[in-house]
């Protein structure tokens, strides 16, 4: 019985960190993360969403050439699933503070979590939606209400993208280690033997 259940589900464990953000124009940033996955995926342990500290760039000489916002925020989660369909995506949204201390969106980004076990490092490009008219853009800048997506998960989906205009700015680096269990036993191969 136990063997049967092993053969129909596999476990996906990810441990890593949201390491840093590379935003040339902006400082004082924090990052929200969540995951977007299919119906067959269940989160067994770990936090499905979180929010980092507000981090500012270092202004010491050694970092001046390419100042990064460091978060060093831990990620740890385990999924169980019956199929690779609906493979989880990490969805990041970076907010920053403007001169008046209001929260302003600085970037949305999403990427599929690595499908191979082992160590991975990826840099996720970030985009912000643009207002549909210049008037709204100016008004939004003054009032501190920029165009935002209704849900950050929008950036992880393909539907409805053709009507959005975005501006790409900055990157976020995520590093992680992935362990897969019971995947090969189900007949799947994810790397050349």
């Amino acid at each position: 019985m136990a063997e049967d259940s092993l053969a129909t589900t596999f476990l996906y464990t990810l441990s890593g960190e949201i390491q840093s953000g590379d935003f040339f124009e902006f400082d004082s940033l924090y990052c929200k993360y969540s995951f977007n996955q299919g119906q067959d995926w269940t989160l067994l342990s770990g936090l499905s969403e979180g929010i980092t500290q507000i981090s500012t760039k270092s202004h010491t000489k050694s970092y001046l050439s390419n100042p990064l916002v460091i978060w060093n925020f831990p990620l740890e989660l385990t999924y169980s699933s019956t199929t690779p369909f609906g493979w989880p995506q990490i969805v990041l949204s970076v907010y920053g503070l403007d001169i008046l201390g209001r929260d302003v969106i600085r970037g949305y980004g999403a990427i599929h979590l690595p499908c191979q076990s082992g160590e991975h490092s990826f840099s996720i490009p970030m985009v912000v939606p643009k207002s549909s008219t210049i008037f709204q853009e100016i008004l939004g800048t003054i009032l501190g209400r920029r165009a935002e997506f209704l849900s950050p998960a929008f950036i992880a989906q393909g539907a409805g993208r053709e009507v959005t205009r975005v501006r790409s700015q900055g990157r976020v680096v995520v590093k992680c280690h992935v362990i897969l269990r019971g995947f090969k036993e189900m007949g799947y191969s994810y790397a050349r033997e």
Partner: protein
Amino acid sequence: MAELHIIGEIVSGVGFSSPNLFCSWKLSYGNAWKELGGDTEGQTHVDIPSDYTTAIFSHPIHVHLATRDVQGWPRILFRVYRESIFGQSELCGYGVTYIPSTPGMHELSCHVWKPVGTLLHQVLEFFLGGSPELVDDDVILSGTNRQRICTTTSGKLKLRINVITRNFDKFNVDI
């Protein structure tokens, strides 16, 4: 039936003359293949990049296919458009790339080309915009009927594709 999962992203477009790009994509495959889940076509957002060079799409591709035959291995047809300052969409080019047949993670780059018209067309294109387009997808997807077309290079798309296969070895398919 053997199964194939294609999980990944259209990451970016580089080297194009104008950075305000969007791209539509369509997965095409042989008759023996069947789609079990996911979208097989889509269109990205328009990116107006802050660095004026690389258009970021980060558009998810997530498809689950089943097959009885390895012939007609899936491939993706891309059409890249740029948005002019007047809001018109103009063709930037076509590109087609096969999904890698080995399981694992792949960083792909797909070169993009577009047809060029006569000198008169090029002059009109320079002043008025608009560019010649191909009527039939078959010209892009198959090797026939390409011999009389003049084309020019326009840029490169970058993709990150994870391929997961299932049960191909049961049918003695070595991938």
